């Protein structure tokens, strides 16, 4: 009896979804799709005290699947859904020397309804904030293993000082990419030439109200392509922290000959008097040739975990895409933490893995 009660809601949902598909009128274009990818890697980590090998889901682009559907409503209006779910076993940003295994979890990424017309697009539900990804615009084609979100691989590892664990990589070197995904309402303007704008407002996963603004650019320029985002966000965290404001952006240029350069800079401030602004700066140089892409990057974070902290990361990456649906990659990076009065060991990662779209 209990079993049947548990199954019933699922059966009703599936029946309803299939019924919706079947009932869609023939007069308007209707489309429903399932797609996704798996992204797994083997990661060797050395924190100066010990070294270990980990099997991880690469959080640069975590394993996921999605259902998407659109329906023309006539008069140039379109309605749609985007339901995307992540499925990660051993996420690369949660593993460390004491946690070699993390149970699989389903995590919501997008549960989004949208309406789109010549006037732009309104989205309602869980999804990207207007500025999410604004610090991560990148045309290098090596982002699957190397991008400004340097905390996504090895973020939970702690810097060691004489065998004593200190702050983690995530706490000291973070790309300050605004408010990520949350429950919000978002409006995207139509494109004005190569520029578009977006605004969103909602409640973040931490339960704080957030507002974001972004200006996006994507244009062919000279003998190449230029893409970038400038963003601003405010999260009302209350108490002594008050409003946490982030401003920043990133810009990436890909020349026709394959050379590419990516830069990013962001700052975050809180209302607390005497608290230094957090800063993050990123530079990446890359080269693409046929099915191969290589890059080298450098990132620097200031005043994240404590005033005076300077977190640095530099690395190299290689991605080979023998088919459009598969990428094989390798990356090597080193994190450093400089803190007045304390000496920390560097943390090194060598990662090899593959992302396959199914």
């Amino acid at each position, binding site marked *: 009896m209990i079993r049947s009660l548990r199954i019933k809601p699922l059966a009703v949902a599936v029946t309803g979804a299939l019924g919706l598909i079947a009932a869609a009128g023939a007069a308007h*274009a209707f489309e429903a799709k399932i797609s996704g990818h798996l992204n797994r890697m083997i990661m060797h980590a050395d924190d100066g005290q010990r070294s270990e090998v980990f099997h991880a889901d690469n959080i640069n682009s975590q394993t996921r699947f999605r259902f998407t559907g659109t329906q023309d409503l006539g008069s140039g209006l379109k309605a749609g859904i985007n339901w995307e779910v992540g499925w990660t076993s051993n996420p690369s940003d949660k593993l460390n020397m004491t946690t070699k295994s993390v149970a699989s979890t389903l995590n919501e990424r997008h549960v989004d309804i949208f309406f789109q017309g010549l006037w732009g697009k309104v989205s309602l539900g869980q999804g990207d904030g207007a500025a999410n990804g604004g610090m991560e615009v990148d045309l290098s084609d090596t982002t699957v293993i190397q991008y400004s979100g340097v905390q996504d691989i090895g973020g939970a590892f702690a810097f060691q000082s004489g065998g004593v664990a200190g702050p983690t990589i995530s706490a000291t070197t973070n790309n300050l990419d605004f408010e990520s995904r949350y429950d919000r309402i978002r409006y995207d303007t139509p494109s004005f030439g190569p520029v578009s704008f977006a605004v969103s407002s909602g409640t973040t996963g931490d339960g704080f109200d957030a507002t974001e603004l972004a200006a996006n650019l994507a*244009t062919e320029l000279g003998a190449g392509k230029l893409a970038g985002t400038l*963003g601003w966000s405010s999260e009302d965290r209350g108490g002594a922290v008050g409003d946490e404001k982030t401003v920043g952006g990133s810009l990436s240029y890909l020349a026709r000959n394959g050379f590419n350069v990516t830069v990013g800079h962001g700052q975050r401030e809180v209302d607390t008097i005497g608290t230094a602004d957090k800063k993050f700066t990123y530079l990446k140089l890359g080269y693409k040739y046929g099915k191969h892409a290589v890059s080298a990057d450098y990132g620097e974070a200031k005043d994240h975990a404590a005033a005076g902290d300077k977190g640095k990361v530099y690395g190299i990456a290689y991605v080979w895409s023998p088919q459009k649906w598969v990428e094989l990659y390798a990356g090597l990076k080193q994190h450093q933490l400089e803190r007045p009065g304390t000496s920390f060991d560097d943390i090194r990662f060598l990662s090899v893995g593959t992302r396959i779209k*199914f």
Partner: protein
Amino acid sequence: MVQASSRPVRATLRILCASAFALALSACGGKPFEYRSSTEIPEGPGLLTGEQGAIVLAGPASTRTPGSPGRRGDALAPADSAEFADYEAFREFRRAKENRSPEYREFLEWKEYQQYRDWRNKRDSGSR
């Protein structure tokens, strides 16, 4: 120490700088393209889904994955109907036109090239 009173001013300045930067770039006048983050699910074909890159549950009959649920009205326009396929192609063209997609811009360039060719042929025949 950071002065609290200077913060709104600095924030405003940053937003103004950001807006000015965006507007300056927009003045470049280059051709727009659709940027997609490569940390998202990649575009293009998939291991199991072939060229479609997705299991198509419902949509134009010519693109639907075999075995997926159909929809009302399919019987009126079977997948092998040349007229239906032509109609779907027309709708795809209309969507491309609305979105000013690269394919549509290429189509406009091709049309312009046809006009140029006609003009050149007329000019050449006139000069003979």
